[in-house]
């Protein structure tokens, strides 16, 4: 699966996407993550952000480099805010959380390897070879 196949597939499932992020916002998010000692954005996420600043399907979310407006609802936090708030959770050390649904969290490490995390303790439950599969599982897990 590549980025375009992923976006086409997930939109067909009913996912909402936002407009593309600009280079400056992506660079700012990346340097903020570095400052906070989180894993920096891997290429697949940077490529995703150049197409869309975030994705939502049911309770599944892919966080963007900036806070996202959510209609009349509470805005969707940015990837930097999410990861700044969870720095005190030991199991998440050296990972960056990029998505969530009501059952699991999703993160990548410094090598860009993606994981499904238990949302009660942050421990890795699954490691992915294909990052787009991780993005897909994150969103589809929120579609009930």
């Amino acid at each position, binding site marked *: 699966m590549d980025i375009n196949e992923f976006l086409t597939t997930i939109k067909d499932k009913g996912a909402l996407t936002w407009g593309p992020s600009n280079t400056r916002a992506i660079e700012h998010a990346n340097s903020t993550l570095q400052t906070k000692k989180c894993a920096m954005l891997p290429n697949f996420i940077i490529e995703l952000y150049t197409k869309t600043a975030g994705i939502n399907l049911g309770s599944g979310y892919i966080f963007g480099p900036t806070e996202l407006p959510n209609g009349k609802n*509470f805005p969707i936090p940015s990837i930097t805010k999410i990861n700044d708030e969870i720095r005190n959770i030991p199991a998440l050390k050296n990972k960056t959380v990029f998505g969530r649904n009501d059952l699991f969290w999703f993160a990548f490490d410094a090598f860009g390897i993606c994981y499904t995390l238990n949302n009660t303790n942050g421990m890795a439950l699954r490691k992915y070879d294909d990052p787009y599969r991780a993005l897909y599982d994150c969103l589809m897990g929120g579609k009930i």
Partner: protein
Amino acid sequence: MKLSEAAATARISDLGMDDMPLVEFTPKPATLSPDWFQKYRALCHQFMETLTDCATEIAFMNLSQNEFMGLVTGRALPRNTSIRWRIPITLGGELSVENMFLCRTFPHSHQLDRFIMEQSGNETLWLPNPARAIYIPTHTATGGTGGNATSDRLAQMAAQIAKDNSLG
């Protein structure tokens, strides 16, 4: 190790939910059946259909009529809405409607994930356990107009849906 009740109450208050009741729970080893996700999805729809009893809480969720109908007929969750386990199934909670509650995803459900994760490794955990099937913070459930729909109107719609369901 475990958090004292006072420390847990202070932390949940820091996370913006000072009115969230907490229950102390000792995690148990859990095994999940291979079809747990299918059961979970079916339970979510069943759970939504039970929410006609919570018209007052729904009225304060500021839902459109379409979102309201989708919710109480079990068709679709409104945006920014989460169904949570009272006791997570990975900690020994049951796959049952009684073990579920509904709240806003941001900020509440996400903050509740944080609250639970921050206690990981403790012998006992403090878990959110709202009194009703829908958690609406007290500060948003008092005063104001109730959003796009008044409590009375949504209560009437919920009663009609419940009546229709019982006739079906």
